[in-house]
C-alpha cells in the first residue's frame, strides 16, 4: 500500500466519521426553514409548501424524528385548503406526539369538525 492509498483510506474514514456525527441530530428538519422561506417568497405556490411539509413528515417518520410543530403545520396547510378530515388526522398526530400542543390542537380539531358538520347541513338542505 503506497502513500496515496493511505491518503484515500484516511479521507474515507474521516468522511464516515463526520457524516456519522451529522446524522445524529435530534430532529429530521429536512430544511424546514428553507421551505418556509420559499413559501413566504412565493406565497401563491401553497401546493409546493404542502408537498414540502408532507415530505418532511414522510422522511422524519422513517427514523421517528418528526420535529415539533410539523404535523400541526401540515394539518393547518390542509385546513386552509379545505381538506378538513385529513387536517384533523394530522392535528391528532401532533397532539399525541407533543402533549404541549393539546390545548391548541383540541381547538383546531373542534373548528374543523364544526366546519365539516356545517358543510353536511348545507348539503342536506340543498337536497331537501
Amino acid at each position, binding site marked *: 500500500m503506497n502513500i496515496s492509498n493511505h491518503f484515500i483510506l484516511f479521507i474515507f474514514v474521516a468522511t464516515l466519521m463526520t457524516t456519522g456525527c451529522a446524522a445524529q441530530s435530534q*430532529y429530521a428538519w429536512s430544511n424546514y*426553514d428553507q421551505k*418556509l*422561506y420559499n413559501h*413566504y417568497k412565493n406565497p401563491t405556490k401553497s401546493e409546493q409548501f404542502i408537498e414540502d411539509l408532507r415530505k418532511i413528515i414522510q422522511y422524519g417518520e422513517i427514523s421517528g424524528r418528526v420535529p415539533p*410543530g410539523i404535523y400541526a*403545520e401540515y394539518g393547518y396547510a390542509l385546513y386552509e385548503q379545505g381538506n378538513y378530515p385529513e387536517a384533523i388526522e394530522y392535528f391528532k398526530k401532533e397532539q399525541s406526539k407533543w402533549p404541549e400542543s393539546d390545548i391548541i390542537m383540541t381547538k383546531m380539531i373542534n373548528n374543523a369538525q364544526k366546519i365539516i358538520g356545517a358543510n353536511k347541513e348545507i348539503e342536506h338542505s340543498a337536497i331537501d
Partner: protein
Amino acid sequence: MARFFLIIITLASVLGCVTTPTRDYTKFNAAKPKSILIVPMVNRSVEITAPDYCLSTITIPLANRGYYVFPVNMVKRLLEDDGLSDANLVHNAPVEKLANLFGADAVLYVTINQWDAKYMVLTTQVTVSLSYLIKDGKTGDSIWEHNETMIYQPKSQSSGNAIADLIIMAANAAVTRAAPNYVPLARQANFRAFSFPGRKIPPGPYLLVDK
C-alpha cells in the same frame, strides 16, 4: 490619596469588564417553560419582507434547545384571523391571554432592529440586528432577553494586482447589493442567541445532549 483611589477604581472597572458577565437564570428556571410560542416579529427596518423571512429562521435553533415550539406559520395565520395581523398589536397584547390562547408556557417576542445593506464605494455591508425577549405565560414577567447583531462584509483576497482586486471588489459589492444575504445572518444570530455561552437559554425538556 485621591489619586490612589482613582487608580483602584479604574483597575476595578477594567477587571470588571474582563470577566464574562454571568446571566441570572433565576426567573427562567423558576418559570421552567416546556413550550414556547413565537409570535410574529416587530419590524423596525424598512425591508417589508424582513419579518416573514426572519420568522422562517427561528424555529429550528429554538426547538433544538429542547423546547416544544408552536408551528410559526399556523400561529401567524391564526392571529391574523383573530384580527392580530399587526405584530405591534400582538407584542402589546397581554402575555397571559396570548399564552392561554395556545396553551403556551412562555412567549418569545423578536424585534428586528436592523435588516439592511449599506452601500459603500467598493463594498456592501449587510447587517441583521435582532432583540429577543421571552416572557412567562403565567405571570407575564420577562425571563430572558438578549440582543444579537451580525454583520457581513464580502472580503476578497489580494491577487497581487491592484486593479484586478478593485474589479473583483466592485463585482462582489454589486452582487451583495443586488441580493443581500440576510437569511444566513438571521440564522446565525438566532443560533448564537439561543446556544452561545453568556446568553444561551437553559436546555429544555426535550434536549438529549447539551453540546
